[in-house]
């Protein structure tokens, strides 16, 4: 099958001669550009079926490559290498090596659902992005992304208590990703954020009355209290256990 997909063309295979005259017609430069074909032998016939075992990619076979997903994509507007339509194309052809060239950005999907909203074939591309990101991690092609580390900490608290607590999610996320929260609080944006929330800038500029009337005492106390006495769903009982058992069984069924 000939290559139709622009993104699959290696730049080194685009050849053109600076000076060329054919039958007396000057076709120098771009006028004589040719693409040297390349044959991809490394494809995996079973790949589409394999990806469909990951949650979210169940409908990937429905894609007819209209490109509405990429066209509407929030991340594509940030970085044109972020191309859901292309990754769905590669998934269907089983060109794993080509997908892996983008393994460091696929996890960046922000789940804005513009693609799933507009897709005329109900492919649910947002789910396919998550499935591909999970496949990359599960097969060891890439390290756990920051996003996955965040998801795992969030879900851990949900399973354990039925609820999350903001500051615990944040501190554990930074700890698990080896980021220095102390540094961010002392010298970075986080410190300035907290200072502004508490209106310390008013105190510093000598507006004592403004500070007293605007600093959020109850809000800060409430959030501080939650750090020590974690919000909890009392009736959660063994719901968490039942749910984690179910997820474990489902993952074993899907991936062995």
């Amino acid at each position, binding site marked *: 099958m000939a290559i139709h997909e622009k993104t699959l063309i290696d730049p080194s295979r685009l050849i053109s001669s600076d000076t060329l005259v054919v039958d007396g017609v000057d076709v120098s430069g771009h006028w004589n550009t040719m693409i040297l074909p390349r044959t991809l032998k490394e494809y995996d016939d079973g790949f589409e079926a394999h990806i469909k075992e990951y*949650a*979210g990619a169940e409908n990937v076979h429905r894609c007819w490559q209209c490109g509405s997903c990429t066209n509407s994509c*929030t*991340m594509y507007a*940030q970085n044109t290498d972020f191309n859901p339509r292309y990754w769905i194309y590669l998934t269907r052809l089983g060109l794993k090596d080509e997908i892996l060239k983008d393994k460091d950005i696929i996890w*960046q999907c*922000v*789940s*804005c*659902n*513009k693609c*799933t*909203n507009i897709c005329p074939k*109900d492919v*649910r591309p947002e789910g396919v992005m*998550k499935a591909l990101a999970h496949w990359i991690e599960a097969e060891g092609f890439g390290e756990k*992304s*920051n*996003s*996955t580390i*965040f*998801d*795992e900490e*969030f*879900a851990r608290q*949900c399973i354990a208590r*039925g*609820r*999350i*607590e*903001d*500051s615990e999610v*944040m501190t554990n*996320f*930074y700890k698990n*990703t080896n980021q220095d929260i102390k540094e961010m609080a002392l010298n*970075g*944006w986080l410190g*300035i*954020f907290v200072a*502004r*929330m508490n*209106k310390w800038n008013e105190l510093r500029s000598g507006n004592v009355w403004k500070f007293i*009337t*605007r*600093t*959020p005492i109850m*809000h800060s106390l409430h*959030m501080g209290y939650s750090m020590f006495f974690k*919000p909890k*769903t009392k009736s*959660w*009982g*063994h*719901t968490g256990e*039942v*749910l984690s058992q*179910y*997820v474990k069984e*489902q993952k074993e069924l899907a991936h062995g």
Partner: protein
Amino acid sequence: MAKVAYYPGCALEGSGGPYDRSTRALVKSLGMEMETVHDWNCCGAMEVKNIHPMLQTYMSARVMAIASEQMGYDTVMAPCNGCYHNLKKAEYELATSSESLDTLQGLAKKSEDPVYKGDVRTVHLLEWLMEDLGADGIKQKISKSLNGIKVANYYGCMYTRPRQIFPEKDQGPGSESSYKPHFMDDLLGAAGAINVDFPLKTACCGGAHTLSDADTSTQLVLNIIQAAEDAGAEVIATECPTCHSGLEMHQVRAETEFGIKTNVKILYFTQLLGLAMGLSARKLGVHENVSDSLDFLHAKGVV
């Protein structure tokens, strides 16, 4: 007026506290009635579905089951877009897949939780206000105009997308539009605000990766803030705690990490409507926002 079950969710219990307080104060002042869902649990937010979709479906349906089976309500009201979105998604999933419904009910029996039967619907606070009062109803109740404050109404992603899970939207006059939502515009307009023509109403703030891909989020938030300022807005009105925190956090981050300073104020729409009802800024938690809008509101004669 129908009484509803109020589902605040984790964000409103934590960093989104001002949204919870302003919602309660506003609803009370409008004479509407709601009761907090007993001992609710997290809806699963944006994270849990990535571990397994059924985990999120279960957690969301559990909230609806408490409201209907244990409290006898037919409507759950959520002011948080994340909660609203997830409950709607569970509603859609369980109505269209009998397999999912079987799995869910099996898990509920095993957990000895109330069992979801599909006889309860979820609405956003905006929808509840529009359904019960409408813009005209609000207009009759306000005691103080918002004095032409220029507002960019920001709805974010999860209030409208994907449209498949919101079958009641896009149903012609009177219904909400998934393409160009207007309920917040309608309410704030009725309260005396001027709604600017804001093209990024449903753009993404990067909330799902607000910490895990912070630079991307800062860029996405800057798009929204700068577009609002370019449209002449003095205030961005929010109706989601994740969007609200994201806008506040990355407005600071844009300044400290990238040297881009912006001035637009960020307020929950409930705070603005509450002010128009004559409630005090303090009661509405305006001082609890990171974005300090009090000097501006004083100057506008709204506080």
